[in-house]
């Protein structure tokens, strides 16, 4: 096993464990913490693929800003432990087979196309932030600006919703 491969399996394992723990935890704060672990592990995976800028932004935006907001709201609302009800019959008899089938399909699709897929970036090479910014602001400048416009509309919508009471 080479170095990068070991790091990949550690990070991937961390991400999967975090995701499982996210669902199994009873308290919302613990779930949020598990989600942070997933985010940070994903950032590590990006770094392994040579996308240094995306890795840093992943932690700053998802790990920092968004998840802090989650934790903040959970703390502010003082949300307690979730209550477990009995599983619905539908979930037991239809859900589990469906989930297994879904996993099977995805695995089969990956296995079938694995020969045709190229490898990710060769380990060790980094896509520089400059290259990325040139792509974003020259070649894809219109989609990029449209996306920021979309976010602006969403922010305005949020303000309108929040101000409706007054």
């Amino acid at each position, binding site marked *: 096993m080479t170095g990068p491969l070991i790091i990949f399996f550690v990070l991937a394992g961390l991400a999967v464990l975090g995701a499982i723990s996210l669902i199994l935890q009873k308290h919302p*704060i613990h779930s949020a913490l598990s989600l942070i672990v997933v985010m940070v592990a994903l950032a590590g995976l990006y770094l392994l693929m040579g996308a*240094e800028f995306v890795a840093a932004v992943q932690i700053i935006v998802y790990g*920092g800003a968004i998840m*802090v907001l989650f*934790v*903040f709201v959970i703390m502010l609302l003082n949300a307690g432990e979730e209550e477990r009800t009995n599983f619905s019959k539908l979930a037991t008899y239809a859900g589990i087979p469906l989930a297994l089938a879904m996993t099977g399909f995805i695995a089969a699709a990956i296995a079938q196309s694995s020969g045709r897929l190229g490898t990710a970036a060769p380990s060790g090479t980094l896509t*520089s932030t400059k290259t990325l910014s040139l792509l974003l602001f020259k070649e894809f400048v219109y989609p990029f600006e449209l996306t920021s416009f979309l976010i602006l509309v969403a922010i305005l919508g949020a303000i309108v919703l929040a101000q409706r009471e007054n």
Partner: protein
Amino acid sequence: VNEFLTQYAFIIVPIIKIAILVFLVLTVDAYLTWIERKVIAHIQARWGPHRVGPHGLLQPLADGVKFIFKEDPLPTNVDKAAYFLAPFITLMLALTSLAVIPFGPQRFKVFGYETHVGIADVNISLLVLFAITALGVYGIALAGWASNNKYSLLGGLRSSAQMISYELALTLSVVGVVLLAGDFSLRNIVTQQSVPGRGVLGWNIFPQIIGFLCFYVAAIAETNRVPFDLPEAESELVAGFHTEYASMKFAMFFIAEYTSMITVSCLATILFFGGWLSPFPESWGFTHYLPSVLLIPFGIWVIFDGLRYENLLGRIVLPAAGAGLAAIGAGLVVFPAVNDIAQGPFWFFAKVFTFLFVYIWMRGTLPRFRYDQLMSFGWKFLLPVSIANVVITSAVIARIWRIH
């Protein structure tokens, strides 16, 4: 053994560097508490610590021993996992952020492995620092929430809101510097400020004075220091987020706070004040003797100050330390090659120490913000000013580039 060392140098050398840095930082942290207590005491016309050792110099050691031997009670109904995790997260992130800071220009070889002063030379080191700062809020928020105490919870909530608000201004205030340097690497940002023959005039502080002021205010808020120490406002919240923590866990929050102060001071030095660069032009060769000029009189003063005491410390330890300092100063005069290497670290630590002193000075001078003042200052003043700084800087840079 030699072969083993050369083969695994890429693991061994960083571990040694980390060990040295952690040791240095923890020592500086300890003595920063002593400096803080002394300076604030003198601002308030008191003596400060002066019982344990000469000038209270052994006070940090006494505090350390006290922290280790204090009882560490576990409050009832705490969320155990988060309660134990919080101080570790805080301290770990505070120490990790020091890893990307370059302390000097030199590159040298150890066991045939080329390395530099600092732990990791990442080409997005500024972004890495911000990423680590962004995670820093969890430690305090979790500590406040897990303690199962209303004061702690309020402290944690205040802290999260404050850190989200000021993180925006902090990140935007350094964009001007990044635009000037065209790089996220802290090392390159320092190199870019070294303009031949201009010395201090080449530093980023002159084009980026607004950026610096925004950065410093936002950074103080990020480190929860006076006048932004609302998460632990003792007159309102007992001790805020760390009310329920005692012993070493309590100390960990404080070590983390002082480490963040060091990180922020290093960052201010690197981004705006030329890092390890001397403020004088290279042609002023005589300024190279400044470390010696400061060290030799200080060493002699320490010798005579120590001799005033009747005990072992005064008779032997302090005079020996003073003689050592004076000898280092004299050695720098005798060996110009060593003196040249010492210039970078000397200026770096002089600048960092100045910023640390300003931190303490402010704590002794300024009253705490009210919570609504804090929020409106951050969102209605600091954020627009930093955005304006980004717009103006980029406009000026674009104009200059078009002319060329």
